[in-house]
C-alpha cells in the first residue's frame, strides 16, 4: 500500500481528491442524509481499495562491492531443509571447480509465527545448527572449504545480514520444488534478485525423491 503522504506531490493530490470526495458527500447529504452516509461509505471503501492496490516504484538493487582479490569470489548459499540436497551440493561443487571460491552457508532458523512472537526460537536455531553442521562437514569431506552460520528466521533478513558481513559475488538459494516451497510462495528468490545486483542461482531440491536427505531434522516451516 502506498501512503497518500509519501511525498508533497502525493499529499497535494490526496488533498484534491479529498475536496472532490467531500463535495460529493455534501451534495448527497443535502439530497438525503442516508444518501450522504452511503456516499461516504462508498467513497471511503473505494479510496481504501485504490490505495491498497497501489505499488510504489521498485527501489534500485543494492550494489554489493567485490571484496578480496579479483581472481577469487564469494558465494552465499542459503538453504534450510534442502541444505544437504544432492542438487545443491552439485551446484556448490561446480562453482568450487571454476575458480577460487569462498562459501558461506546460511541456514535461516525457520520457526512458526506463534513461536516467533513468543521468542521461542531455541529449538529452531538448534535444528538449523544441526543441519548446518552436517552440511559443512559434508562439504569439507569433498574438499570444499566453507563457513556457515544460522540466520534470522526470515530468509530475506538472513540474506540481508549475510550480504552485509560477507559481501558475496553470487547468491545461491535452495528451495523445495514449486508447490511445496513456502519460500517460493512468498517470493523469496524474486525478492533477493530484485534487492541485489549479483547473480542469484535458484536450486530446486526435491527431497521427496531423495530419501537420503530425509534424515535431517525438519523445521517448522521452509
Amino acid at each position, binding site marked *: 500500500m502506498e501512503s497518500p503522504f509519501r511525498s508533497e506531490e502525493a499529499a497535494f493530490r490526496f*488533498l484534491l481528491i479529498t475536496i472532490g470526495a467531500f463535495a460529493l*458527500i455534501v451534495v448527497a447529504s443535502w439530497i438525503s442524509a442516508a444518501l450522504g452516509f452511503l456516499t461516504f461509505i462508498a467513497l471511503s471503501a473505494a479510496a481504501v481499495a485504490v490505495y491498497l492496490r497501489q505499488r510504489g516504484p521498485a527501489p534500485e538493487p543494492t550494489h554489493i562491492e567485490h571484496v578480496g582479490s579479483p581472481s577469487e569470489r564469494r558465494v552465499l548459499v542459503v538453504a534450510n531443509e534442502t541444505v544437504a540436497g544432492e542438487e545443491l551440493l552439485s551446484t556448490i561443487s561446480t562453482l568450487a571447480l571454476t575458480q577460487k571460491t569462498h562459501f558461506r552457508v546460511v541456514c535461516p532458523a525457520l520457526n512458526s509465527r506463534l513461536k516467533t512472537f513468543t521468542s521461542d526460537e531455541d529449538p529452531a536455531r538448534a535444528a538449523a545448527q544441526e543441519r548446518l553442521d552436517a552440511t559443512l562437514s559434508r562439504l569439507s569431506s569433498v574438499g570444499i572449504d566453507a563457513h556457515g552460520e544460522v540466520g534470522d528466521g526470515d530468509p530475506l533478513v538472513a540474506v540481508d545480514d549475510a550480504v*552485509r558481513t560477507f559481501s558475496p559475488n553470487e547468491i545461491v538459494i535452495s528451495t523445495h520444488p514449486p508447490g511445496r516451497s513456502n519460500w517460493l510462495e512468498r517470493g523469496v528468490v524474486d525478492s533477493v534478485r530484485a534487492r541485489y545486483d549479483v547473480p542469484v542461482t535458484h536450486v530446486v531440491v526435491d527431497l521427496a525423491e531423495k530419501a537420503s536427505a530425509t534424515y535431517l531434522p525438519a523445521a517448522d516451516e521452509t
Partner: protein
Amino acid sequence: MSTHAESLPGHHDEHHGPPPANQSSRVDSRTLGMLLFIGSEIMLFGSFFAAYFFIRVVNPGASTITPEAWQFWPPCKAPPVGGECTAGQYEFPVFVAGVNTCILVTSSFTMHWALQSIKRGQRAAFLAGMVLTFVMGLAFLCTQVIEYLNVGFNTGDGAFASVFFGLTGLHGAHVAIGLSLLLMVTIRGFRGHYSPEHHHGVELPGIYWHFVDVMWIVVYTSVYLL
C-alpha cells in the same frame, strides 16, 4: 545504496571498521518520521471526531437547555415550544468558515507551487510561493480567532460548543504549528537555503501543510455543512 563486508582472513581490504548501518526501511527516514507523525495526528483527530459524532448522534446531553432541544442541531437557545425552536438555534458561521476554507485550500496550491519552483531552480517563485502560503495561513488563523469572538456561544454552552471549539481549536493549533514550519522554511529560503537537489526541508512541511488542509476539509464538512 551499496554494501561491502569485512575481509576474509589473509586478504587485504580497503574498507576498515564495521559495516555501514543497515537501514531496513526502504522509505527515507525523515519521510518515514513525518508519516508516523501524521499517523499519530490522524488518531488524535479521530478521537475528537469520535467525541463529536457521539455527542451529535447519540448523546441528548449535547443540548444546552433540555433533552428536547437535542432534536435540533445546532441545539436550540431556549427550550423548544410545541416541537419548534422558537428562540432560534445556535448558528455556525458557515459563510465565513467557507471563505476561510477557500483561503486554506489556496494556500496548499501556493505551497505546491513553491516546491515545484525550487525543484526547477526558480528561487523567486519559490520565495513568492512560501510567502503567499504563510500569509494565507496566517489569515486563516486570524479569521478563526475573529470567528471565535463572534460566534455567539462559548465553551460553557453545552457539549456541542465544547466539541466545536475542541475540533476547530485542535485544527487551529495544527495550523499554528504548520505556520511555524512555513516561517522557518521562508526565512531559510530568503537566506539562500534549498536548491533543486536539496529541498527536503520544503517537502516535509509541505506534506504537513497538505495534511492540515485535508483535516480542515473533514472538519468543515462535518461541523459546518452537515
